[in-house]
């Protein structure tokens, strides 16, 4: 997990995701691009909801439930959140 893919993700959004996620991370897992929410961080649906709500507040965005099934990793969330931030805040 050394090289981060160049996916157009915003560094600011990446930093925000990691900052919020770390407050929900109850494991010793070091957060990386490929860290998986369910398998690596033991997130259940309740924790996912609380985390997403906190991220929405941090970035002032709306993350529809619809996008969540396609998001397994931290990197995928950063990409999706970047898209939403650009759409909502220009």
């Amino acid at each position, binding site marked *: 997990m050394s090289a981060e893919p160049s996916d157009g993700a915003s560094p600011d959004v990446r930093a925000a995701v990691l900052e919020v996620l770390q407050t929900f991370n109850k494991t010793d897992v070091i957060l990386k691009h490929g860290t998986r929410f369910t398998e690596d961080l033991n997130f*259940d*649906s*309740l924790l996912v*909801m609380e985390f997403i*709500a906190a991220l*929405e507040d941090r970035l002032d965005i*709306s993350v*529809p*439930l619809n996008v969540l099934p396609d998001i397994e990793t931290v990197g995928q969330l950063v990409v999706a959140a970047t898209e939403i931030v650009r759409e*909502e805040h220009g």
Partner: protein
Amino acid sequence: MADLFDRFGSLRARRDSLVGDGGHDPFQVEMDEVLSQTEAMICGRHTILAGTNNYLGLTFAPESLKAAHDALDAEGTGTTGSRVANGTYSGHKALEYALSDFLGKDHAIVFSTGYLANLSILSTLVGPDDYILMDADCHASIYDGVRMGDAQIIRFKHNDAADLDKRLARLSKKPGNKLIVIEGIYSMLGDKAPLAEIVAVKKKYEDVYLLSDEAHSLGVLGRYGRGLPEEVGLEDDVDFIVGTFSKSIGTVGGFCVSSHPQFDLLRLACRPYIFTASLPPSVVASAKASLALVESGGALRKRLMRNAEHLHKGLVDIGFILGGDISPVVAVVAPDAETGVSFWRGLMDGGVYVNLALPPATPQNFTLLRCSLCAAHTIEQIDRIIEVFADVADSLGMLPAESGKKAALG
């Protein structure tokens, strides 16, 4: 070789670890004989039923039984058809008129179950450019309905109008309609929606509609049993009311009412309405008869609330700390699923049936021993329920105060 059912491996493991010891299975209860609204024989034991959602006890109302018998004899055991084909009889239309009349809306559609009512409305009413803002504690039928549809789904924190406000504010610049979805009484903990606060938030924004699922509050709240909107005097502010016949109405079926002038178009658009058979005439007839009893059921509601208060107080007195609202749903939190199963079995051995509710079907991943009361329960029956709860908590060495702390948070 791979087995088709391998994908259920974790479910099987959880079931086996929780109830695989051959003891009484909370999810395979069989009523050998139903004795009344409040009693049945289960495993040869005379059991008080305290988890049936039969709030007003209308399952044996003489008027409803007679209406069902008459319709059964006159029109047969089933319609064998969809509402849009051969499955609409005069009884279905009469029930729809009765519902719209009772709830003060211009239109009503009857569905074959409450689950299908939510699937129908939530999957169809809103499109890809619209938003659903749903309370996080909404019932599975609401979750399934919105997943079946194309709208963008936003959840707000349970019963938190300020959180809803924040989310609507973020969406206010986006085009598209917004539909807020709440429940009058939430099924698991029995708490009510803060409807006045939610309506106030709704009114701040444009193109926002409000849908309330009154499954557990119809017949229960309001002077005439029209649910939470009647109780708080905000019926005109709720655009769509969804409900079920399988609780206070005492049979099976669902409905939605609205005064939107084009509401009837949904009959041609809702797939769970079109592609399933309609309710049998006897069910429709008993629903209509029971609906009239709901409206005139002030005395039943008083008994129900008396019973709710009695059970609530009794459980609090022996040390259980329960959630805020006193309602006909009384949920005791168990510390974990294993204790929940042991507790439930202890209650069954003592002749008391309640629902065992496990995560993820519960708010905040609680394990719940969920009681629901009936107007037909006697004070003696409720005293017995309290006594058995106390005995089981005692035998499990389960300090009620400890288990209750979480409930107080909920």
